């Protein structure tokens, strides 16, 4: 029997997480490179509801791993269910999206099986029959090619945006679906989760903004935010920030860009004093044009910038605001 790659897709609160299509695309690419068989699994209280949607993709098989104990999500139940399922199936490679939910249970699952997770990968390589997973290190300043040295199953998670979900190939005919019922004893589940909620009504929807001026630690002090605001106003854009700025209360949380905030893809993203930590980049790397101003020429933000300005933002921004204002006034007359 050939080796199998199993993609565990994510569903939350009765919805399939779109990032799952990216992981299926990753699985299809690895299957093409290795010749291994690709299968998928949906895990949840009523996983079979989502199985048909997944089975439309080019996959050899889709499993619906079900138990009423999987609703609501707990790491204990998910790890227990998947351990049972994977121990029986013995896939060579298990792929998942690197979501907050996966981060919550996959290290536990792998440890329970005596295996390792190569987490937050951005790609893979298949060199001389060896499978390598590429991941960022030191906040994106370096990349590492990492191999598994343990027995299978191997676990790898892919960072949001590493593969194109819309490139996940559809199958010629729907993949067969098998429902797998797992038994989870009550005593296994120790956490009692309450309803998922949003803190406050999101006042600004940054996803609709065409121009975003975003500030990071380089802005230094709260009073300097005004300078960035003036540039945003001059450009007719929205002001946003990286996490540390919102953590400090300098801007409200609903202006935060990144994995814990909003994911945006404006026409123009102007990053001021943002170093480009991975958690921020995943929230804005889809922007059409990225202009970055940073005094550190090695800041990871420059890796994804279309235009780079190495310099002090306090020198650059005021004349830029002035020029933009002039240009706008000029175009109106």
């Amino acid at each position: 029997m050939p080796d199998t790659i199993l993609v565990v897709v994510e569903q939350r609160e009765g919805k399939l997480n779109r990032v799952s299509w990216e992981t299926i695309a990753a699985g299809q690419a690895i299957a093409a490179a290795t010749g291994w068989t690709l299968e998928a699994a949906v895990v949840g209280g009523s996983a079979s509801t989502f199985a048909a949607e997944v089975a439309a993709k080019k996959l050899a098989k889709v499993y619906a791993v079900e138990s009423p104990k999987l609703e609501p999500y707990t790491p204990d139940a998910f790890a227990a269910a998947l351990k049972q399922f994977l121990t029986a199936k013995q896939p060579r490679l298990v792929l998942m999206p690197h979501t907050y939910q996966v981060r919550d249970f996959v290290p536990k699952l792998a440890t329970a099986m005596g295996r390792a997770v190569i987490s937050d990968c951005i790609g893979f390589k298949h060199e001389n029959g060896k499978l390598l997973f590429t991941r960022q290190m030191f906040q994106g300043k370096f990349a590492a090619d990492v191999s598994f040295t343990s027995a299978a199953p191997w676990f790898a998670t892919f960072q949001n945006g590493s593969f194109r979900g819309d490139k996940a190939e559809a199958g010629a005919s729907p993949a067969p679906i098998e429902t797998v019922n797992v038994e989870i004893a009550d005593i296994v589940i120790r956490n009692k989760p309450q309803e998922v909620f949003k803190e406050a009504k999101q006042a600004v929807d940054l996803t609709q903004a065409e121009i975003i001026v975003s500030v990071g630690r380089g802005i230094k002090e709260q009073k300097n935010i005004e300078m960035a605001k003036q540039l945003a106003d001059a450009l007719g854009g929205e002001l946003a920030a990286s996490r540390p700025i919102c953590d400090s209360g300098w801007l409200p949380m609903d202006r935060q860009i990144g994995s814990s905030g909003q994911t945006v893809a404006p026409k123009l993203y102007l990053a001021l004093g943002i170093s480009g930590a991975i958690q921020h980049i995943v929230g804005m790397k889809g922007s059409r044009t990225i202009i970055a101003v940073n005094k550190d020429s090695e800041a990871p933000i420059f890796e994804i910038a279309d235009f780079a300005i190495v310099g002090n933002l306090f020198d650059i921004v005021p004349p830029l605001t002035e020029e933009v204002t002039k240009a706008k006034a000029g175009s109106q007359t």
Partner: protein
Amino acid sequence: MKILVCMKQVPQKDAPLKLNEASSWIREDVSYEVNEPDAFALEESLRQKEKHGGEVVVITSGPARSQQVLREALAKGADRAIHLEDNAFVGLDAFNTAKAFAAAIKDEKFDLIFTGLQSDDYGYAQTGVILAELLGWPHATIIMQIEKTDGGIKVKRELEAGFFQFVDMPLPAVLTIQSGINKLRYATLIGIKQAKNKPIRKVALAEVQSAIGENLQKIERLYVPQKTKKTEHIEGSPAEIAKKLVDKLRNELRVL
């Protein structure tokens, strides 16, 4: 409450990093600092102790330089420290780091273990959850709030895209702490003075060697990432840069 805080020393955020000759790791002659989420984990442990009493113990693994992280934690108010001191700890994967920590604390009885949600160097985001599984404890990740309840604790988990969730859980438990859960304190002069008399237990590699095994994953090579984007540098005086940028915005990007 007796709380253990796992802390890590990582290169400073804006430290220029260089690869070593073997391209297996960075050159170690850089400035280091405490991993930022770990600083928030420490702060949270001190606040919990101030509310409920108990003890705060900090633990790290790494060469002699990493003791600085423990010294700073003791100066901020931690009661004592455990240092797994050996350069070999730097190369351990998350699975073995967690195993080494579990071995080093096997004679202790903690109610809570905190870690930062991930490290700025490897960025595995795994060690805390692995440690929970090794100890057989429940865990919760990316925590933004902790309250003691009658039966244990109630924590606020951060989910993606602005969502949150409260979770009730029993003790003992492992929590991975999100940056921004609290406001960090500075060490006071008196704290720095007192820290000098606080105990640091050193644990040699040999003491935990039997608990750890071969790494389950291996970094084959470390390299500067190939750029996928063509980046155009805009240079000149601030006034020149402003003019050039506005020209781009108007004529190339057409957003003005």
